């Protein structure tokens, strides 16, 4: 037959037809497309949320580790200056500062301003003198607290061990398993996406078979579905990115910044959005490849 165009031109037109058919295929199978988009959005969203959680916990524990502090309550008539020197010399202690009983009362009064008049509650200042000890590593809080408690003149050591210990354990666990969980979840998401895709294009087996019989190149048949998968994956990834950025924005930037220990820092929005889009495209395309492979094989054996 007469060929009116060269091979590169024919390849370009073939690509044009492929993309056109991909667009038509997507809009024609709206319900299936919605199912694939939602599945990919969920998969990417959950994986992204796990990644964000791991990152956030890591940042928070880093902050905590570097900002862990304990309050040393002194016995009456204790030598604050001597104790300050001894504690400062201990390994793992970053700084020690003296908090007088007057300044502690003043701090409490400021804290309860407008709510309770402490001068009406206390006839004498009930607070002891104290030392504010800043640690360089929260993991050593127990050891340092033990050492400080045994010093003469120390009444009590108060620190958030009940919060720090579980948080450190959680952080260590998340550090070890978080990325593994995210990877596993991504694999499960890929599998679910492939199954959803297979269901979505199963009823198009006749279309695949007809195209095979007409001599359509396998790469074009596959390419159409891969393009459809990538397009739907892009939409799913964008949905996931919107939700994650919104949630991360609302939670990390508006809530976590209020923590007294400081903010873990803004979530990397650009990276997050790009990651969601790329993950969505990959999930859609790979899911489509696996599904169309099976459907094409089934169609070719039914010809």
């Amino acid at each position, binding site marked *: *037959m*007469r*060929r*009116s*165009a060269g091979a590169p*031109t*024919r*390849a*370009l*037109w*073939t690509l*044009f*037809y492929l993309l056109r058919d991909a667009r*038509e*295929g997507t809009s*024609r199978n709206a319900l299936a497309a919605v199912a694939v988009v939602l599945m990919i959005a969920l998969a990417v969203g959950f994986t992204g949320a796990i990644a964000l959680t791991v990152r956030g916990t890591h940042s928070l524990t880093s902050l905590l580790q570097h900002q862990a502090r304990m309050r040393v309550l002194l016995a009456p008539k204790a030598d604050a200056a001597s104790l300050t020197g001894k504690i400062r010399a201990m390994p793992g202690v970053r700084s020690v500062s003296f908090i007088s009983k007057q300044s502690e009362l003043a701090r409490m009064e400021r804290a309860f301003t407008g709510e309770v008049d402490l001068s009406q509650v206390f006839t004498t200042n009930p607070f002891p003198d104290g030392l504010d000890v800043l640690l360089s590593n929260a993991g050593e809080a127990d050891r340092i607290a033990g050492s400080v408690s045994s010093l003469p003149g120390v009444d009590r050591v108060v620190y958030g061990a009940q919060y720090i210990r579980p948080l450190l354990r959680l952080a260590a666990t998340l550090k070890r398993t978080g990325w593994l969980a995210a990877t596993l979840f991504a694999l499960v998401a890929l599998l679910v996406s492939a199954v959803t895709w297979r269901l979505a294009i199963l009823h198009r087996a*006749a*279309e695949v*078979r*007809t*195209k*095979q*019989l*007409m*001599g*359509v*190149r*396998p790469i*074009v048949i596959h390419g159409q579905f891969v393009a459809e998968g990538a397009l739907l994956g892009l939409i799913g990834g964008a949905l996931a990115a919107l939700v994650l950025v919104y949630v991360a924005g609302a939670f990390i930037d508006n809530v976590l910044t209020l923590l007294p220990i400081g903010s873990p820092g803004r979530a990397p929005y650009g990276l997050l959005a790009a990651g969601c889009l790329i993950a969505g495209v990959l999930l859609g395309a790979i899911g489509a490849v696996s599904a169309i492979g099976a459907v094409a094989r089934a169609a*070719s054996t039914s*010809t």
Partner: protein
Amino acid sequence: MSRADVASRSQSPVPALELDGVSKRFPGTERSVLADASLRVNVGEWLFLVGHSGAGKSTVLKTLYGAVKPDRGHVRVLGTDLASARHFRVRQRLGLLFQSFDLLPQKSAFENVAYGAEILGLPPREAKARAGDMLDAVGLAYASARFPHQLSGGEQQRVGLARALIHRPPVVLADEPTGNLDIDAAHAIHGIFERIHRDWNPTIVIATHSLELIRWAGRRVVRVQDGALFDDEEAVGRRAGAVAAEETS
């Protein structure tokens, strides 16, 4: 009847279609559909494949377009051995027509026909021009915007034929093309086959049950029987008689 083997019809140096000692048995069945079957179809020849249901007519056609892989033997299409060829390349040189029409349901009649040109990478303008011409040629210009579900069986088959012929293939293979059609629609399809054979002389192989079509067309008839292919001399004889009677009158 005589075996329709390679030696019996050796007119063109390279046949358009050739089965050479082909055997095929489907998994789970005891009987071979094709057993050492041979067939040679010359360039420009038109033949009918006949045989009872299940005899293997469709298997012969499927073997020719690569949908069935033979257990033994060679299949050559336009000189290309299918065993070593990429099937889509071979199919792009064929025009395939099926009893079940196999139109793309999401495309209109016009788009279905144009798709036959698009898969070759022809530009849209050329594909559309050809599609318009082909729909005209099969008498369906009025239905070009309709979708397959809006067409009758005969109209769908004519769309299928227009799609199969849009690239003027040198070989046309049709599997029961009039099996689902009434007599008028079948005649319309036969008329188109006659016209294209006269116009550009493609090699045509039609698997059919229709004795009327065979008698009317008066072409070579090959019978599929017991896994072998035989030239049906009786049918050839009838054809010769009909031609002689026509010439006498």
